């Protein structure tokens, strides 16, 4: 795979994107700014017989929107979809420094309904911010959320291109009923990510390596500013990721830093590295931290979400981890491969026995309501209010998961 060089030696030329035998659904753009001579485009594409003319037309359009008048553009296309082509051209242009302050926004797909603060978040599927081939079909695998990642899966030199690509993706790709989330970079770089993506109304922002509540507030303020400027009224939730001993110690303060925090999660790779311990499949070394996160989240009234299980081939290990995670009080976890989604959903699903018991409790409650009885009882046992609350929530969740109708 040939990669583009973000740090182009000449300020007059730059490139963006990827091409080569192994590359699918991406495009490589070489960009050579000049003072005269107009726009000159050369195109090589594996889909040229079908879309060659369309790609040339789109390139001219994008250059027009970016205000680029004199340029030599060379395009190696590997079957990239239009929103990807636009992002790569814009990234190359900005790297040359000719389109500063300008954007080329592709036609917008209608936004889905706003995300609810306490919606189902059993699974979030990681999509690397520089691998566009995974985006278009991600929602077919039905995770509760997709997470467009600008942090660890994107090379330092590719951050600028990735955030343009993620912006276009949020704008154009139909993610169905998935919550559309973005993991920004650690602050302060993450603020540049926010500037690019918040205008496209992501449903939730994940902030990595949070240690202090002020970091959450900084992100929250910036989101609020951009929302205000763009007239966005729908909510954009925040999920801080705690990835250090200090972060875990401050879990409750972080979870309560803003009312936009909808969930709290933990990153175990970095956490175990911070402790200098080995991360095991059983996770004994992180039991305290995970319990702490669960407790802080519940105390703050937000969801506790677990880390990822990184061995894609180990389905049984994933299932065990997920079941233990649910038992410990987490409501979901990350998925690094679509194949993990179903297993995670099954693991976070209430058991048939739990559902049966909860339904009996709810039925008893409804019967008591009908009879105008203050005390709810099931058989010979009186049902305490917290038991009832838990049963109501469990039945509601099971319905949302499609386990019961």
């Amino acid at each position, binding site marked *: 795979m040939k990669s583009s060089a973000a740090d182009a030696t000449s300020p007059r030329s730059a490139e963006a994107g990827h091409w080569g035998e192994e590359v699918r*659904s991406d495009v490589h753009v070489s960009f050579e700014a000049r003072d005269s001579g107009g726009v000159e485009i050369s195109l090589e594409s594996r889909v040229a017989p079908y*879309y060659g003319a369309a790609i040339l037309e789109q390139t001219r359009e994008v250059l027009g929107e970016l205000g680029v008048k004199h340029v030599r553009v060379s395009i190696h296309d590997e079957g990239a979809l239009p929103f990807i082509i636009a992002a790569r051209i814009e990234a190359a242009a900005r790297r040359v420094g000719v389109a500063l302050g300008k954007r080329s926004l592709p036609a917008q797909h209608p936004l889905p309904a706003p995300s609810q603060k306490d919606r189902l978040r059993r699974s979030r599927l990681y999509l690397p911010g520089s691998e566009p081939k995974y985006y278009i*079909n991600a929602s077919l695998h039905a995770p509760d959320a997709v997470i467009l990642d600008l942090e660890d899966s994107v090379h330092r030199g590719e951050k600028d291109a990735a955030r343009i690509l993620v912006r276009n993706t949020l704008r154009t790709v139909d993610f169905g009923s998935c919550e559309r989330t973005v993991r920004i970079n650690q602050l302060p770089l993450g603020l540049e990510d926010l500037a690019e993506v918040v205008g496209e109304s992501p449903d939730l922002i994940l902030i990595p390596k949070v240690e202090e509540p002020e970091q959450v507030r900084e992100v929250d303020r910036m989101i609020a500013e951009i929302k205000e400027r763009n007239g966005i009224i729908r909510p954009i939730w925040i999920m801080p990721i705690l990835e250090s001993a200090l972060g875990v110690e401050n879990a409750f303060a972080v979870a309560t830093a803003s009312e936009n925090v909808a969930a709290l999660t933990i990153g175990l790779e970095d956490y175990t590295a911070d402790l200098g311990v080995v991360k095991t499949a059983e996770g004994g070394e992180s039991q305290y931290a995970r319990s702490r996160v669960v407790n802080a989240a519940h105390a703050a009234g937000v969801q506790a979400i677990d880390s990822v299980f990184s061995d894609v081939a180990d389905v049984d290990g994933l299932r065990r981890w997920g079941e233990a995670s649910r038992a410990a009080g987490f409501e979901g976890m990350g998925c690094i491969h679509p194949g993990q989604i179903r297993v995670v959903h099954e693991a976070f699903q209430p058991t048939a026995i739990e559902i049966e018991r909860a339904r009996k409790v709810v039925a008893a409650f409804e019967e008591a309501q009908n009879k105008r009885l203050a005390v709810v009882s099931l058989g010979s046992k009186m049902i305490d209010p917290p038991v009832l609350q838990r049963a109501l929530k469990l039945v509601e969740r099971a319905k949302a998961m499609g386990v019961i109708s």
Partner: protein
Amino acid sequence: MSVKERERVELAHTAAGRAVPTMVNGKPQIPFLGVGNYQPRGRKAAPAICSNKDYPDSGDKRVPDLETALRKCGLRDGMVISNHHHLRDGDRVALMALEAAARIGVKDLMWFPSASFPSQKNAIELMEKGVIHHIEGSMNGPLGDYCTQGNMRGMGVLRSHGGRYQAIQDGEVHVDVAVIAAPTADFFGNADGSHGKSACGSLGFALADSIYADRTIVVTDNLVPFPCVPWQIQGNNVDFVVEVDSIGDPAKIVSGSTQITRSPDRLRIAEMVAQFLRATGIMENGFSFQAGAGGIALAFVQYLKQMMKEDGVKARFVRGGSTKFLVELLQEGLTDYILDGQTFDLDGVKSMANDPRHVATSPFTSYNYHGKGNFASLVDAVVLGATEVDVNFNANVVTHSDGRLLHGIGGWQNCLFAGCTILALPSFRDRIPVIVDEVTTMTGPGEMIDVVVTERGIAINPRRADLLDAVTAQGSKLPIRPIQDIKADVEKICGKPARPKLGNRPCAVVKWVDGTVLDTVWQVS
């Protein structure tokens, strides 16, 4: 026929409205009349009667080399020379024979392989030199490009495995000399494919050649004392036996291990196919199915296997191309038999060699349409691929959307006669839509294709209301959608593709299973 002559070819229209030439390589053609509408007449072809007096009583038919064998067969200018493709991309024998023919000095041969492979691209040189006039058989890669660029002197003729048997049997193609690569053989010419260092499993594709050719040469790198048991090719049909060091590269004959797709999207397709068979009740005790060796098909077998176990269902038979995944079904008692046309991996070859329930079949038993029935129509469900499917369920397997030759037909057309024909494919590849308004080349008429399963949903052919009823009766949650809706989704994602400009000169034809001409492959401009 020269290129110039070809420009004057007259065209007629098939029952499906496709323009096809009325003459191909000097022979008049019948355009496709609709499925089952062509009535063949006359008697089958037959080679000349031979006499034992012309063959050695010792049974030893060996000659020193292939060139000698071809000379003794009387190979002359303009003859038809045939090969089978069971050694796939590892085959050495076909080129060996054609190069020997070149040394003899013959010209204008028609090469009639059951399929050609990229490693045989030297055939282009032999066409340039005039040794080969044209090829009738699947062409892809460099050979395909040579054909679609209009460089071949004759027209390419693409036939299904069953169609090739039919063409030989009916006398449409008369094979003068058949050269049969044999992984094991005796001096009498009995030959077997499932043993020897170059083992490939079945030799079924060579059956028609051995029966109907005037002369047959067996070429082997594993000569065993008479008798070669089992014999898939009967020595009584063989004129000469040639021993060589190597008939092929074992690494390319069969794959060491066949790979299931790892693409989540393709796995999703495979799983939906299996769910569909379960939801419609096709997956029931005693049922049968066929799936190829593509990544989706292999994954489908694994999903179906799991469901068969869960539901306690066992198949009566499954049809190969066999792989280790079918072999496992057999070994785990989930099917009584594998009826195998070709063998794709080492596990398949070993199983055929050692397990009497793993049976070698031929295009005669499985696919020949001009017979008293064949096995393909007895199969309950078949899972196939395609490069394009249109909104009328017509499908293309032979060309890219830009008109270049991509694949042979293989058994694909013949399999369409199964009880439920399912195409399992992504709705687009690299921005190129697979669900289209009209296929580039019709390889299968839409009336034969029942279900199209894509990652974006399952389209059931409106002609198969019974399947739709069966799925809905079970209250299945499968995403059943009109094919037009899936096409609309794809065009929204990819944009509407321009239609590539095709030339107006035919460079090959696609035959239907009955020998009529189904469509034309046009020269790429």
